[in-house]
């Protein structure tokens, strides 16, 4: 009897220690230390607009069912195996958007996935890629967003079943899968390659869709860029590595052309969410699309998971 009680007490203590450990380890401040903002130079609005466009911010955050892609009222539903996310209002509206945010709030959100209120964001918001942009670039995007129209209204809450509705769980996910460093150029590669690597992996967040994910929703790094089943539902996301059924037979010019016009070398026109990606990438200078093509041509051939 005494032994049973001792066992019970031990179990309760262990459980409490476990919960405490979970609580400490998933603290947004522990998982995502704020980056150094320091004293940034005056924002470059042109660069902010370019990165905002390359980042496809409006593709998720623009108010659905209206034509002005710069009205960032949010509300678009994004399906996933974990539930449905609703992109929030990121217009500069002081009550419903991010009008009250400071630069540091925005940089923290984009680089560490932590909200000004100190909560974890779900990685449906691809801060896992955006974090590659240095604080200066993120501050430029923030300054650009602040020039756009404030939009009233809030998006519906995410529809997530337990345990995904607990944001602390994302803290554990970050410990396992999130790396917080900004992009570091590879000095052995050309300037164009580095620009392409930055655009593809950072703002462009191409791997977020063009990779398959594990049971916990993290990108399987071994098959990064190798495509796979579309997590949003029907269809397949193409392999964009140099595999024979990927971009192996495409020239740099053909990749750049697709990013500008949406046409493949056989003059098929890409559909689904890639159509919006093309509309965005078409606004970049030719040199940026060619840089992305140069980087993609350097990716080793990887076979993606089959349906």
């Amino acid at each position: 009897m005494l032994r049973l009680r001792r066992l019970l007490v031990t179990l309760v203590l262990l459980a409490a220690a476990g919960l405490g450990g979970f609580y400490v380890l998933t603290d947004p401040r522990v998982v995502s230390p704020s980056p150094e903002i320091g004293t940034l130079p005056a924002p470059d609005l042109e660069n902010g607009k370019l990165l905002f466009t390359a980042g496809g911010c409006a593709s998720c955050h623009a108010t659905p069912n209206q034509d002005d892609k710069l009205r960032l009222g949010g509300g678009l539903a994004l399906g996933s195996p974990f539930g449905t996310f609703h992109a929030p209002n990121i217009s500069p509206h002081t009550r419903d958007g991010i009008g009250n945010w400071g630069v540091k709030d925005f940089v923290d959100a984009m680089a560490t996935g932590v909200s000004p209120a100190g909560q974890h964001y779900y990685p449906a918001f691809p801060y896992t890629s955006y974090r590659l942009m240095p604080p200066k670039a993120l501050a430029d995007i923030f300054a650009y967003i602040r020039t756009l129209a404030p939009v009233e209204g809030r998006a519906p809450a995410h529809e997530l079943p337990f345990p995904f509705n607990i944001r602390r769980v994302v803290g554990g996910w970050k410990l396992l899968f999130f790396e917080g460093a900004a992009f570091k150029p590879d000095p052995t590669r050309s300037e164009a390659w580095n620009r392409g690597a930055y655009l593809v992996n950072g703002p462009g967040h191409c791997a977020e869709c063009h990779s398959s994910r594990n049971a916990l929703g993290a990108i399987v790094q071994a098959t990064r860029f190798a495509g796979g089943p579309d997590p949003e539902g029907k269809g397949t996301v193409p392999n964009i590595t140099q595999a024979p059924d990927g971009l192996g037979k495409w020239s740099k010019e053909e990749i750049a052309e697709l990013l500008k016009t949406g046409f493949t070398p056989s003059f098929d026109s890409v559909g689904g969410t890639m159509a919006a990606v093309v509309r965005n990438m078409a606004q970049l200078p030719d040199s940026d699309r060619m840089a992305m093509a140069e980087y993609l041509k350097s990716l080793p051939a990887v076979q993606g998971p089959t349906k």
Partner: protein
Amino acid sequence: MIRTVLVAGVLGLGLTAVLAQSDPIAERRNTMKAVGGATRDGAAMAKGEVAFDASKAQAVFKVYSDAAKKMPGLFPDSSKTGGETTASPKIWEDQAGFKAAFVKFEADASAGASVTDLAGFRTAFGNATKNCGGCHETYRVKK
């Protein structure tokens, strides 16, 4: 010998037509391939890779118009799946919007039906090909 070839050819054509009718997925794929081929010709002219030729330019829009007329009828309920189709379920959920997209495509294509100069061709070709991505965005799944 020539007669044999001709007969075989005619039979072959007839057979293809019959097969296409009984296989809407194959037929819409062929129709879209023709659109892609016309776009290849058009893009080469628009970029100046080949010289502008009014009859070739008009032929591009003819292919577009024909496809725009034919496509809406190639999506019976029996063809929602199969044959590696990339048709989105939205086609059947929103028939009105789907058909309207082809009405717009046909209108944009007919605007180029009588182009005579390169500048006019570029404008009409640009407008017509904007329909590709716009329609695929909604009515086609990722591939």
